[in-house]
């Protein structure tokens, strides 16, 4: 009889468990379906700009050189990414651009040749024929067969021809030809530098045994300073930004620990001088944690303006709450015996804390701080993007201009390397602390 009931009960429990095991995934699935509908996944497929994705991918690994003719002033300029800071001098044009008076011949490679001849632009496309664009009040398009093929996008005000070799755009104001090149342009030296256009070997040779390019200093210091002050990639500014991000994380984390440690004593059950005070301090911790870094960032940046200090203080305030809670829990778990022992020698309160409590909790506290240091490096990037400081700001600015994707890729790479490095550092220090103690 008892075995029967026992068996019955077991089967019932098993059945319930099996139903649960099916019900939970079904519930999750149902929720995800609801979320997909409420997030309008179907509409997203239409809104997605896959051409943007293609531009992003292509631009990340390549750069383009703009050959621009100002149609109002009949002036030619050749620049990297159309940037005014990276314009080729008229006597140092790339060898695929030949300018003579108002006639410019641009060789896009593979037989594609674009010719600017006054207001007339001719694009000679192999296997298709010459396409002529004439700029007047608008832009007139002439194709060999009179049709507009798919790779030409024409309206009365603007004509764009896109081929595998490059892109030609003509408007009343200007005619522009883009040619794409592999790699990140002028990563080491910008165009204004005397070292521009040299290969790595040439630079190494100049540094090691070449004559002084600038008589005032050695080639090595010239190369380093040209690299550091590179106008396009701004290595100096990027290094500062990375430093600012680390600084925010460092100051925020350890500053919070400094503030939280004494408060944690007030919030720990075994050290709190009064229950009322303990309750109040704990509510303060909860409040500060609940307000969240986002809100602190907004409030603080109103007072201090954008910059690393604002970010550091925002992290400091938020983490004071988290640390206060964690530290007070650690303090509640300390062994009372060493403290009693120290009390028996006639030690005062401060001495009891210093020699009885701190040595017990320090490894736990330090390891928590190091955990937070790593995650705060990431937070500092995000807070920097909001409050304007560090690498986060540079990244958002680069993304918002939507043209320098190679810089975006560079910054993302730097951020990932930075976070992984901080992760490694904090892990290494934690292991040393735990083994050392």
């Amino acid at each position: 009889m008892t075995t029967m009931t026992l068996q019955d009960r077991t089967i019932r429990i098993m059945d319930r468990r099996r139903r649960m095991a099916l019900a939970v995934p079904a519930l999750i699935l149902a929720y995800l379906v609801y979320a997909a509908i409420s997030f309008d996944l179907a509409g997203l497929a239409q809104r997605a700009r896959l051409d943007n994705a293609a531009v992003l991918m292509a631009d990340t690994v390549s750069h383009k050189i703009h050959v621009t003719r100002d149609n109002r002033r009949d002036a030619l300029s050749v620049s990297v990414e159309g940037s005014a800071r990276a314009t080729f001098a008229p006597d140092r044009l790339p060898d695929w651009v030949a300018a003579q008076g108002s006639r410019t011949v641009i060789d896009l490679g593979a037989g594609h040749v674009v010719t600017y001849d006054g207001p007339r632009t001719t694009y000679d496309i192999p296997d298709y024929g010459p396409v002529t664009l004439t700029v007047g009040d608008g832009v007139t398009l002439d194709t060999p067969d009179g049709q507009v093929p798919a790779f030409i996008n024409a309206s009365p005000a603007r004509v764009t021809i896109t081929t595998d070799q490059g892109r030609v755009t003509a408007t009343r104001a200007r005619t522009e030809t883009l040619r794409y090149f592999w790699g990140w342009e002028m990563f080491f030296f910008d165009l204004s530098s005397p070292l521009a256009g040299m290969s790595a070997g040439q630079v190494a040779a100049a540094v090691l045994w070449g004559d002084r390019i600038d008589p005032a200093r050695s080639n090595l210091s010239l190369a380093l300073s040209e690299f550091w002050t590179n106008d396009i990639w701004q290595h100096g500014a990027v290094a500062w930004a990375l430093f600012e991000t680390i600084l925010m994380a460092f100051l925020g984390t350890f500053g919070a620990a400094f503030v939280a440690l004494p408060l944690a004593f007030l919030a720990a059950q075994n050290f709190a001088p009064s229950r009322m005070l303990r309750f109040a301090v704990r509510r303060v911790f909860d409040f500060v944690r609940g307000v969240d870094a986002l809100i602190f960032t907004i409030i603080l940046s109103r007072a201090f303006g954008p910059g690393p200090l604002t970010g550091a203080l925002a992290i400091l305030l938020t983490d004071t709450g988290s640390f206060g809670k964690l530290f007070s829990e650690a303090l509640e778990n300390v062994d009372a015996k060493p403290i009693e022992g120290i009390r028996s020698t006639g030690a005062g309160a401060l001495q009891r804390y210093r020699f009885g409590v701190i040595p017990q909790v320090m490894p736990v506290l330090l390891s928590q701080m190091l955990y937070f240091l790593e995650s705060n490096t990431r937070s500092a990037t995000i807070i920097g993007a909001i409050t304007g400081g560090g690498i986060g700001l540079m990244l958002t600015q680069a993304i918002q201009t939507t043209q320098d994707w190679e810089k975006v890729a560079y910054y993302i790479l730097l951020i990932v390397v930075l976070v992984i490095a901080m992760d490694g550092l904090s892990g290494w220090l934690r292991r040393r602390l735990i083994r050392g103690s």
Partner: protein
Amino acid sequence: MALAEIQHDYLALTRRRRLYGGLLVVIFVAMMVSGFRVADARNAGGFWQGLHQVGDFPAALVSEAVQKSANLPGHMIRALPALVETLNIALVATLLGCIAGTALSLAATRGLARWPRLVPVARRVSDVCRAIPEIVIALVLIFILGGGPVPAVIAIAIHTAGAMGKLFSEVNENVDLKPVEGLASVGATWSQRIWLGVFPQVAPNYLSYGLLRLEVNIRASAILGFVGAGGIGYELRNAMTFGQGKFDQAAAIFLLLFMTIVVVDQISGLARNRLTHGAPA
């Protein structure tokens, strides 16, 4: 003689230790101070000039909110759909991230992995996923997919997958392998061994970590809204950039966000407590 020597050595050792400890503290304090000075110098506004203004903005916010306190409930109700969106972003991202993180963690645990050779690969994958801040993926995806919740979900989910991959694999390493071996001896497949032998052991820990992550992700989702991913963060930014005159709305959103975070933290804290210490008798 020997005793005196030992005492002398011991005292010298203590002194040296104290000296090193003291030096470390001094260096550390110097680093903090100089760090703050550098940060202060590079900030747009200085610390001491700004200190007395810290209260200005909250004061303006509160005074306008108090003045128009009748509007607050209305503003809150109007912000509710945005709040639901923020919560949905966080929840969907946590779910997807935890599912992906479970797969990653199983692939990254020695002894449980289906393909033991891929263990280091899975670990590196979760390291990289963990290292990329959400905002990076979100901003790039906003460029491709347009603003809205989906970029935020993907961004948070990728980061969560990385973080959970690491935490879950630490849990997996402490699993008792006897049930798994028992299942293997009766001919269970890999998925059956995991489903019946591992998951019942790790489920409470997984759930507890997942809940903790949900708290983190709600904050992250609010922040991503602020950079254009929809939800309550976006509403907050709109109210803030409008400035004076819409501070009552900003205050209502602040309040709503704060209450949500506190309520979710409390519920998840209670649930986690039950998961780790068992249900109260």
